[in-house]
């Protein structure tokens, strides 16, 4: 199958190094301590953070740090074919674990000992890059909840099809049988927090694809910072107006 036209355009009209349209919103769930939606093209996810709160299960309580928990669920209508079971299957369990570990490395857990932080991610539409969208939404939700973090986490994926590195694969490209490299970075600290790949790739090509994914993640981080600052600006000016 041809993923890149002779003119160099992908199936959805993008160039190989082009990311899909990003869109994020903060504070979307009324009762959550922090929440955010994140869209990458047609992939839409919503994340909610509840915490820090008292640990529900005493046996899991950690004396020196916060307990971070995460659950990933997919809506029955999120994929083209209707899914019967949105959570509890192996893929959901694995992604829950990945998100939890990535966010835990960002949170300054020693500042909130003996507490519990719950991160819930709900996928509304899955069109490739779900893992990355979930991590980005979770990071924004944690920031919205005021949970202290050493840095934001931004994530993006890249692949390799028709001999070209491609940034931010959609579902059709993802199903193309080529490799899929997902990376999660601490943009300001310039460190990699998550790295996953499936299929196979020679080392020199892997470095190119990884670099592309990291560039994508950093660009995503810039967008996320913009949205967070904009949100703070709105809250500050709302407060200012009330004063007069």
């Amino acid at each position, binding site marked *: 199958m041809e993923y890149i036209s002779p003119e160099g355009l992908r199936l959805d009209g993008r160039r190989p190094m082009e990311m899909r349209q990003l869109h994020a919103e903060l*504070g979307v769930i009324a009762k959550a*301590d922090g929440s955010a939606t994140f869209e990458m093209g047609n992939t839409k996810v919503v994340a909610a953070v509840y915490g*820090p*709160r*008292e640990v529900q299960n*005493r046996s899991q*309580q950690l004396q020196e740090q916060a307990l971070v928990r995460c659950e990933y669920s997919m809506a029955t209508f999120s994929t083209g074919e209707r899914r019967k079971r949105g959570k509890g299957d192996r893929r959901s369990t694995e992604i829950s674990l990945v998100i939890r570990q990535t966010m835990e490395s*960002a949170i*300054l857990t020693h500042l909130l*000992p*003996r*507490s519990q932080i719950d991160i819930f991610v709900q996928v509304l539409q899955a069109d490739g890059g779900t893992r990355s969208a979930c991590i980005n939404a979770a990071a924004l939700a944690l*920031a*919205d*909840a*005021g949970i*202290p*973090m*050493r*840095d*934001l986490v931004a994530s993006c994926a890249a692949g390799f099809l028709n001999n070209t590195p491609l940034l931010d694969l959609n579902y059709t490209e993802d199903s193309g049988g080529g490799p899929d490299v997902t990376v999660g970075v*601490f*943009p*300001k*600290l310039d460190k990699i927090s998550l790295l996953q790949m499936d299929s196979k790739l020679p080392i020199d090509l892997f470095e190119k694809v990884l670099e592309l994914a990291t560039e994508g993640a950093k660009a995503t981080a810039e967008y*996320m*910072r913009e949205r*967070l*600052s904009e*949100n*703070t*600006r709105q*809250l*500050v*000016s709302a*407060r*200012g107006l009330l*004063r*007069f």
Partner: protein
Amino acid sequence: MKTKAMEDAAAIYRTPGELLGSAFDYIAGTGTYTFQNKVYASLVGVQHIVEARSGAADLRPSIEVRREKQRGAIPQPGDIVTAKIAKVQARMASADIVCVGQRAVKEKFTGTVRQQDVRATEIDKVDMHASFRPGDIIRAEVLSLGDARAYYLSTAKNELGVVSAMSVAGATMVPISWQEMQCPLTNQTEPRKVAKVE
């Protein structure tokens, strides 16, 4: 003269991970952390630089990131909390913490007042049932995060103790001394560790 609008326009917004300055120039305040001698932001909010108090040992200004959104209240050691006594036992009383300072909590926390923390004098002769009864509202200070089950609370100061209690007859009692409260309906007095109301 800086108007509020001008101040708001000049505000610097920070997000987690942003480099704020060198640890040699600033003390890390709330919402920040230090790493390898540099101060970074850990929260989303507005940056504030607070000058050191004159005469303080460390004259560096402290740099903070203050959130605009309020988070639910969580008891910290030193906080004055309002709690409702749930259970009174021979050596301790357990209470549900309802407010921290002036703010109500979003979810319930459990606190324990041990026999030695009820008052400041004669701490080994304290009779728990003569100090608290279930249903009393107390003002207490958080001593520490306590054990796995509950925060440790103390009512040892004069202004701490029972703030509001119902008598056996069902009326709200009036405090008469630091040890007794009186029911307005029956004029009977009941023993409590009463908070001194200013």
